[in-house]
């Protein structure tokens, strides 16, 4: 078990180093940072001084190492466009994105598992068929269209919910939360559904196909042959076996919610990290892009790692195998 954990952590670090290299190359080679930082009136002396100050005269590996050190300290330099430290910008925007991702992840997970189980158990029912057809449309729909559709119905036509922004937020330390005010909670509804719907469809389809696969297994037939109730067979036996593989994919899906938040944040003008990133891409604000890339990779790699460990914790067979392998 320990050997397995160490190996996985090692792999994660490698991935982060590779991503760091990409982010650093971005930083270093896409657009000249010196050009970006100095104005039109500059002398060769200014340029040389800044190059030395930024360490750009050092060999490549040294620069890379320094970049990694800075990144680990949370120092990603200054935004070209806003002239403020990138780290400050990220910290300011993070709560909005994290709260949105949390609510939509919960929505996607709960909805996906419930609907997936329902459509698997009632395989031939009309409601299950309807849900499956609707889910195909859901997968084909681009996220931003769902957002626009929701805005059109609930904000423009019905006027029930706000169409942009976070509503009123409450500041707790450096964190700002929308959970504590009515307008903050209302503002969360449409963006969360928009962001979670696609993931929910995926989770639902996955749970359904896994559950159908499990229901075909011999041990399910044997459970039926022992006269266990449908409830015991479906929930006592099939569900647990279904969720083991589902956890992996679901974890990864939850990770991509953070990335897809870019789209939702743009549609709803949600003041999160994603909106910051897309503005950075539009204006080629390289330090912000690089920092976002590093931030999101840490998040993804972390989620991957947790998912893998969880997988081992749940399945007794793997637990035994790992234990045996570690000996």
């Amino acid at each position, binding site marked *: 078990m320990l050997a397995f954990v160490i190996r996985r952590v090692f792999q994660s670090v490698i*991935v982060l180093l*590779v*991503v760091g290299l990409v982010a650093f190359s*971005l930083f270093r080679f*896409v*657009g000249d940072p010196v050009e970006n930082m100095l104005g039109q009136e500059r002398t060769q002396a200014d340029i040389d001084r800044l190059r030395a100050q930024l360490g750009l005269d050092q060999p490549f590996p040294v620069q890379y190492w320094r970049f990694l050190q800075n990144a680990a300290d949370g120092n990603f330099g200054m935004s070209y466009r806003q002239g403020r430290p990138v780290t400050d910008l990220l910290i300011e925007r993070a709560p909005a994105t994290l709260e949105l991702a949390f609510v939509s992840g919960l929505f996607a997970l709960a909805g996906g598992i419930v609907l997936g189980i329902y459509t698997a158990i009632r395989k031939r029912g009309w409601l299950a068929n309807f849900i499956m057809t609707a889910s*195909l*449309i859901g*997968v*084909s*729909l*681009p*996220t*931003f*269209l769902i957002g*626009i559709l929701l*805005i*059109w119905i609930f904000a*423009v036509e019905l006027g029930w919910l706000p*169409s942009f922004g976070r509503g009123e937020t409450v500041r707790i330390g450096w964190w700002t939360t929308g959970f504590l005010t009515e307008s903050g909670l209302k503002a969360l509804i449409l963006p969360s559904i928009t962001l979670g719907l696609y993931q929910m469809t995926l989770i639902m389809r996955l749970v359904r*196909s896994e559950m159908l696969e499990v229901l075909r297994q011999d041990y399910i037939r044997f459970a039926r042959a022992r006269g266990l109730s449908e409830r015991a067979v479906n929930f006592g036996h099939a569900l647990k076996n279904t969720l083991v593989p589902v956890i992996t994919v679901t974890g990864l899906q939850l990770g*991509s919610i953070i*990335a*897809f938040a*870019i*789209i939702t944040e*743009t*549609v709803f003008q949600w003041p999160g990290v994603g909106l910051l*990133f*897309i503005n*950075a*891409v*539009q204006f*080629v604000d*390289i330090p912000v*892009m690089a920092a976002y*890339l590093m931030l*999101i*990779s840490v998040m*993804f*790699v972390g989620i*991957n790692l947790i998912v893998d460990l969880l997988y081992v914790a749940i399945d007794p067979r793997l637990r035994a195998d790992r234990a045996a392998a570690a000996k």
Partner: protein
Amino acid sequence: MNAIRRALDSDLGHSFRHSPVTIVAAFFVVVLFAGAIFAPLIAPYSPFDPATLNLMNGFTPPMEPNAFTGETFWLGTDDQGRDVFSAILYGMRISLFVGFAAVLLALILGVVAGLVAGYVGGWFDTVIMRVADVQLTFPSILVAMLIFGIAKGLTPPDMRDQMAIWVLIVSIGLSDWVQFARVVRGATLVERGKEYVQAARLIGRSPGAIMFRHVLPNVMSPVLVIATIGLALAIIAEATLSFLGVGAPPTQPSLGTLIRIGQGYLFSGEWWILFFPAMTLLVLALSVNLLGDWLREALNPRLR
């Protein structure tokens, strides 16, 4: 005629005839593709020729004569007096062009990488598959955005709008090659062990010839399935990027750009500027997706 009858009699044709949803989807795909290809012939106006635009025609609702000029537009006009119907036809042209080109790029990259990785193996295989793994950790739309940002940074500012379409193709293509590479590599590993490949090797055919003449035809059906589904994904990716403002520029609007423009008029009541491009994108993406789903079921039920 005979060829059509033969096609309908094959297994693929059989499952096609028995799936009404697929027939409807195929119908829409044919109509929309034709509309895009023949846009210059069909479109009543040339929406991007400033000389033909009349600002007086701005914000004309669908099927109603304009208050000032008396002109009528099927699907109305936008703020510039551009005919929405014509704009959709030309926009779809760009969307489909980017979609096809991006899939083609991803396909070529992925198939070559997968074939060589699977056939040659060794360090090349290891490197390719590691890169694929790392890239797969991230959603492809994010990768595409990133590549778009980098490419934009590398192009001179005054060239950016002209290059945008090509940058878009490269971004989406590079973000999607992994699927092809993985499937082709897997299939190649299987094919490599078979006797006909060993026989071809024994009679002294070069590795390149074996890969492309012998192995490739045998891995084509999964590639076809991935390409079809990939086309739907590429169309959506293009629309998403353009909608976010990091894709096709307003001078060469794709469906996504048109939706981005239309979103601004959602609250002021000019719904048609948004609605018709959005519906077109929806029907296009859904139809191609349904075709891909059908193809996957029909060609290879095991591929999921």
